[in-house]
């Protein structure tokens, strides 16, 4: 309940704290600590219940029930799982590099959680810190996650773990390139690197960048899934080939840290995708119904829920893909990264740049009026928006065309042509070894 009270009345808490501490302490120490505590608790809970949701969703896809025993509908299953993992033996292989083996899971989990510092969960106080290089921060910190995987794979002194680590490093490095390039398109419209700024650019324009950047969104999502090592790109931990990949030798609490890092990284990618392309906490009419009427706290909380709902939808996409698609092979994954995602991201940048230039060029006193203001992002008028969206749609076809041109000679381009139909043959019947006859036949030797 205290959490809810805190959410509803931050100004009340603020005045209460000011009675005991100086203003600087409250602003720079206590209030951020409360925010960090809130975000970490909420995210940890969200992560725990993401595992529950994944199990339930996969169960429904597979004609079964999923967890049902612990609590009603198995709702307490994540807690039971957590307790089980905490009480398990912390096993370290004999020839492992002990210190690195110890440290790797912490790097993974810290790298995943720290990104949440800049993610705008909502307006006003619902963001821990609004860094003006937020996007760069996200990219930089999430790359540190690779380090954990490599260290874990190397220190385990197991060949499966080593192969998993090698795969993961190659995979994450390749997909980070296209992920970073995909974001640039959205940033051209936002004209800022601050994540809150990106959301405000979308809110003040009342448009989602998904409409301007369909290609960018797709690239970002695919690269994000690959970056998270989730199916169908879960090669570093491909259980059928590499047993469990980089965390083969991990068990108990350390294993659960990796698990938590994976789910947190998923939450982070969905949150960033929501921020960049789905308008973040912005939703039509929410501002007019709440903030404009003076209900500030309600506005913040509703925005927060909007954000979580959008991120949740993307999270569902993750589960959906995981439980329906087979896994890529390592080389096919690299092909997809370098031959499809990277060129697509480059084309996206070029087309977006042309779009922005065209929009700016058309905006002159004599001709069309395309730009409204430049205060928050690229503020476009209706005609400007139409041009931007048209460029987005053209970009879809252009990217598809260019990618086919690049890849039409590769093996995987037209697999359906390569597949053969089977023939059905009615073979002639030979002399029966056993025939269902009712007459007595002569005995064999």
């Amino acid at each position, binding site marked *: 309940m205290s959490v809810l009270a805190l959410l509803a009345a931050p100004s009340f808490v603020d005045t209460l704290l000011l009675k005991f501490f100086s203003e600087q302490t409250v602003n720079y120490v206590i209030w951020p600590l409360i925010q960090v505590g809130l975000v970490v608790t909420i995210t940890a809970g969200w992560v725990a219940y993401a595992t529950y949701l994944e199990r339930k969703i*996969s169960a429904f*896809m*597979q*004609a*079964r029930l999923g967890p049902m025993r612990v609590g009603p509908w198995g709702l307490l299953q994540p807690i039971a799982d957590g307790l089980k993992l905490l009480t398990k033996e912390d096993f370290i292989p004999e020839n492992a590099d002990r210190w690195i083996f110890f440290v790797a899971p912490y790097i993974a989990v810290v790298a995943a959680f720290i990104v949440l510092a800049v993610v705008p969960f909502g307006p006003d106080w619902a963001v821990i810190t609004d860094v003006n290089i937020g996007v760069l921060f996200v990219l930089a910190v999430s790359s540190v996650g690779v380090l954990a995987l490599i260290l874990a794979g190397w220190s385990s*002194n197991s*060949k*499966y773990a*080593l*192969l998993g680590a090698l795969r993961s490093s190659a995979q994450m490095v390749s997909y980070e390139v296209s992920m970073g390039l995909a974001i640039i398109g959205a940033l051209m419209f936002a004209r800022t690197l601050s994540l809150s700024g990106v959301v405000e650019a979308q809110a003040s324009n009342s448009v989602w960048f998904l409409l301007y950047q369909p290609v960018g969104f797709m690239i970002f999502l695919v690269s994000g899934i690959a970056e998270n090592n989730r*199916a*169908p790109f*879960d090669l570093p931990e*491909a*259980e*059928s*080939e*590499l*047993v469990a990949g980089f965390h083969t030798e991990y068990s108990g609490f350390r294993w659960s840290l990796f698990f938590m890092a994976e789910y947190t990284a998923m939450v982070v990618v969905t949150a960033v995708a929501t921020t960049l392309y789905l308008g973040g906490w912005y939703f039509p009419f929410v501002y007019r119904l709440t903030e404009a009427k003076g209900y500030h706290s309600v506005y913040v909380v509703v925005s927060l829920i909007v954000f979580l709902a959008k991120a949740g939808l993307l999270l569902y996409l993750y589960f959906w893909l995981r*439980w*329906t*698609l*087979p*896994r*890529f*092979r*390592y*080389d*096919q994954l690299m092909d997809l990264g370098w031959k499809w995602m990277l060129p697509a991201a480059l084309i996206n940048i070029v087309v977006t740049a042309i779009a922005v230039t065209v929009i700016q060029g058309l905006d002159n006193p004599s001709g069309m009026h395309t730009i409204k203001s430049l205060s928050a992002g690229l503020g476009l008028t209706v005609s400007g928006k139409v041009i931007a969206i048209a460029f987005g749609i053209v970009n879809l076809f252009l990217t598809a065309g260019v990618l086919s041109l690049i890849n039409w000679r590769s*093996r*995987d381009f037209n*697999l*359906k042509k*390569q*597949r*053969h*139909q*089977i*023939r*059905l*043959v*009615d*073979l*002639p*019947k*030979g*002399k*029966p*070894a*056993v*025939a*269902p*006859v*009712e*007459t007595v*036949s*002569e*005995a*064999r*030797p």
Partner: protein
Amino acid sequence: MHQVEIATTKNALMDAPQMTLNMGPQHPSTHGVLRVVLKLDGETVIDLDCDVGYLHRGMEKIAENRMYTMIAPYWDRLDYIAAVSNGLVWVETVEQMMGLDVPRRAHYIRTILTELNRIASHLLWLGTHALDIGAITILLWAFREREEILKIFERQFGARLTCHAWRVGGMPNDAYDDFASDVKRFVDNFPKRLDEYETVLSENRIWLSRTVGIGVISGEKAIAIGLSGPALRGSGVAWDIRKARPYAAYAEMDFDVPLGENGDTYDRYLVRMEEMRQSRRIVKQAIENLPDGPVNAKVPKLIKPPVGDYYHSIEGPKGEIGCYLVSDGTQQPWRVRVRPPSFINLQALKQMSIGHLVADVVAIIGTLDIVLGEIDR
């Protein structure tokens, strides 16, 4: 196959350009206790060696010390996925040595149940093969249908997996009362489900890229190695013992044999999927024309086949499962030899895998559809 050197020291791992990876005997996708020693250059397989025998129980030797009727339950544990087919090859071999004439109804019920067993075995193959390639959901869908078949087995034989199905000369008891309606219900529902699986896999881009052109083996090579069953037909060789030397009631059944073209993993996948459809067709015909009558032949109290030897084989779900029986005229066989389809099919693994990646080895083991119980006996 020559022995692959196994690198043991820490430094060998770092210095050697080649890495030796020991896959199994405890590994999620070697389908049991198969151990494959892979020699890798990066992730490309340059050599591999299979190490079998972890499940060896000396079945053939045990059989020399058992009476003919007592051997049948052991046969269920060969290919435990297809216990009904295994049981059939044993009883038919003994029946033919004895010159027994099994009643027509027994033959028909045998046909129905072995074909159901073929479907069950193929469903398990489909599930695990898809699981190996990463499509997890198919496994549970396949098990849902397999469950229906196992329920029929449970009611008929009293067991689900190792269901000591037959007796020399016929069946332990007649089909249970609702047998026909249960089988008919399964036959009616099955094609719909099969189409569902095909929707998820057959046209799936990732599935195609993981299976088309992987583990190719030509028809000549397949014959040279001695492949049989779907693995042979996937390479386009028209050979099916149900057609070539019909047993049970197959001589009276009307069905087609699916043949692949490329001999790759995808063709074998399509062949097995089509085989399930054809099996269903056979079951449908057999259950509609199920004759009345007794299910047991007149069998002497003591089963003593005449002195001599006899080889009989049937088309099991995994290939030709054969039984070579030498009798010295006593109550116990002098020598029994099983022709194990999985063991012989496994010999193709090396030829199919070299040059592919580790992930493909897993897919190829899956497509060969091996069962370790039968490889090690």
